[in-house]
């Protein structure tokens, strides 16, 4: 079985599952499905910048939050439809990403230090918005619910589900096209060794900025969706470090730098979270202990992620022949 075949099987399985899932799910399970897809979109976003280009972000919440706040502020203050706000939010997030990237890379921040810088930026934005009265400050913004599809509001959760499914599909198609293009090769080369990449004529700074901006734009789409779906945002929700973690974990568990890794990762990690939450209600904290233990087990036994593991098993079988 070659890589192409594995990819095709994974794609078909995920697509079929994604499309028919709402017909078999009750309200509660459908909510979990939507959360899986939000995590998948965040994971794919993180995948572009960190999985492919190797620029580890620990602050993806900054882009998620900017997406959520841009569309929500435009909607509640100026009546701009969140469909348009979503695109503006993605643009703003991409610009902020480029600025963060430019500042960090200009001062030659790399690896751990770059990761810390992204964490710092997420915190800066959280505190800024927390103290900005016109953006609702710490109390956040409640979005009036008009149930108007033109305003990115739907009567049925099924519709929300399919909307986020489309975004996840878009991100996945983007990565699929990217990974085989000049852009994708250059990003992987930069992850491998940026000096060597520059020696081959790759404008390292430019490609890093493209990676961080496009990654930011997808995270912002997830942010707007979150705001529209839950109808309420505040800085401690959308700029939270838990959001940044939610971008990282599916990608690493599923296989970072692989096309379907974040999707598989989200499919595993979010239901696991839910199961832990519902099983261990009597003693508080046990859910997180179990959840943490499972993640540790994954890191120990599956360091390349689920998809990386599949590829390795396949590689070994190929070698035996």
């Amino acid at each position, binding site marked *: 079985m070659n890589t192409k075949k594995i990819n095709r099987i994974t794609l078909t399985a995920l697509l079929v599952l994604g499309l028919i899932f709402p017909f078999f799910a009750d309200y509660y399970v459908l909510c979990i499905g939507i959360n899986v897809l939000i995590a998948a979109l965040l994971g794919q976003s993180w995948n572009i910048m960190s999985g492919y280009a190797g620029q580890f972000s620990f602050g993806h919440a900054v882009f998620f939050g900017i997406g959520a706040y841009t569309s929500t502020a435009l909607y509640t203050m100026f009546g701009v439809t969140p469909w348009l706000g979503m695109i503006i939010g993605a643009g703003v997030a991409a610009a902020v990403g480029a600025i963060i990237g430019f500042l960090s890379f200009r001062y030659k921040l790399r690896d751990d230090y770059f990761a810390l810088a992204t964490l710092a930026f997420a915190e800066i934005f959280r505190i800024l918005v927390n103290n900005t009265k016109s953006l609702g400050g710490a109390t956040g913004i409640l979005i009036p619910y008009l149930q108007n599809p033109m305003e990115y509001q739907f009567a049925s959760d099924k519709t929300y589900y399919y909307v986020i499914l489309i975004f996840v599909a878009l991100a996945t198609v983007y990565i699929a096209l990217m990974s085989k*293009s*000049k852009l994708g*090769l*250059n990003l*992987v*080369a930069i*992850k*491998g*060794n940026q*000096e*060597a*990449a*520059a*020696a*081959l*004529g*790759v*404008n*390292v700074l430019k490609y890093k900025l493209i990676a961080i901006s496009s990654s930011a734009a997808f995270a912002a789409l997830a942010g707007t969706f979150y705001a529209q779906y839950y109808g309420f945002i505040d800085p401690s929700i959308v700029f939270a470090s838990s959001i940044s973690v939610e971008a990282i974990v599916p990608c690493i568990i599923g296989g970072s*730098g692989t096309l379907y890794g974040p999707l598989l990762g989200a499919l595993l990690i979010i239901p696991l979270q839910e199961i832990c939450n519902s099983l261990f209600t009597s003693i508080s904290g046990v859910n997180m202990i179990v959840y943490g233990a499972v993640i540790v087990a994954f890191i120990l036994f599956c360091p390349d992620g689920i998809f990386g593991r599949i590829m390795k098993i396949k590689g070994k079988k190929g070698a035996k022949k």
Partner: protein
Amino acid sequence: MILLEAKDVCKYFHGNKAVDMVNMTINEGEIVGLIGANGAGKTTFFNCLTGYYKATSGTIAFMGKSIEKAKPHVICKMGVGRTFQIAKPFHGLSVLENTVVGAYNKCKTKSDAYKKARECIDFTGLGDKEGLDAASLNTGEQRRLELARALATQPKLLLLDEVMAGLTPTESAEMVELIRKIRDSGVTILMIEHIMPALMSLSDTVYVLDQGRLISKGTPEEVSADKQVIESYLGKSAEV
């Protein structure tokens, strides 16, 4: 025609003179050797030429254009390729894809880039390995991949930093042939090398660095007869 001209190039690290007033002229079609003991400043000089370090003072011109302040990728675009002392294959990309990254330096379309990359892989003798992950190559193959990638950028001048280090005698001999083939294809070469027979047989001109300073230059015969060079680098055995 003069391809590269370095004048009075200095590189200081906190007062430590790693490269001290080095002058070098490379003519088109030549193979120029650069030798010197470990720490003599050879790689630092390479890094100044290719934009990884900014020279503290001095000028460097490639085809008449000043490059001492240019960034590495710009210098590559202008036609200077290089390899690294420690091979740096991009893991997760196949041998072909590794080379395609270099080919995009000049190629505009995907099909051109892949065509150019295949050409370079065949040229360096990696043709049957194009689908393998670069991480799975052995040392000799990694060196060849470094060369293939650098060639794919279509350089006029190629800087080779110890491409024979760690190779078996057979592989070294093959590498000598390959370097000749590259020169014959019209690429000028500047190479750092510790394997003297290989370097002496290839080079038209040899430059010798010692503690950052240029202590000798000339044909391989002239340099290997130079007393100062023998003392500082080659050792007594070269006299025999």
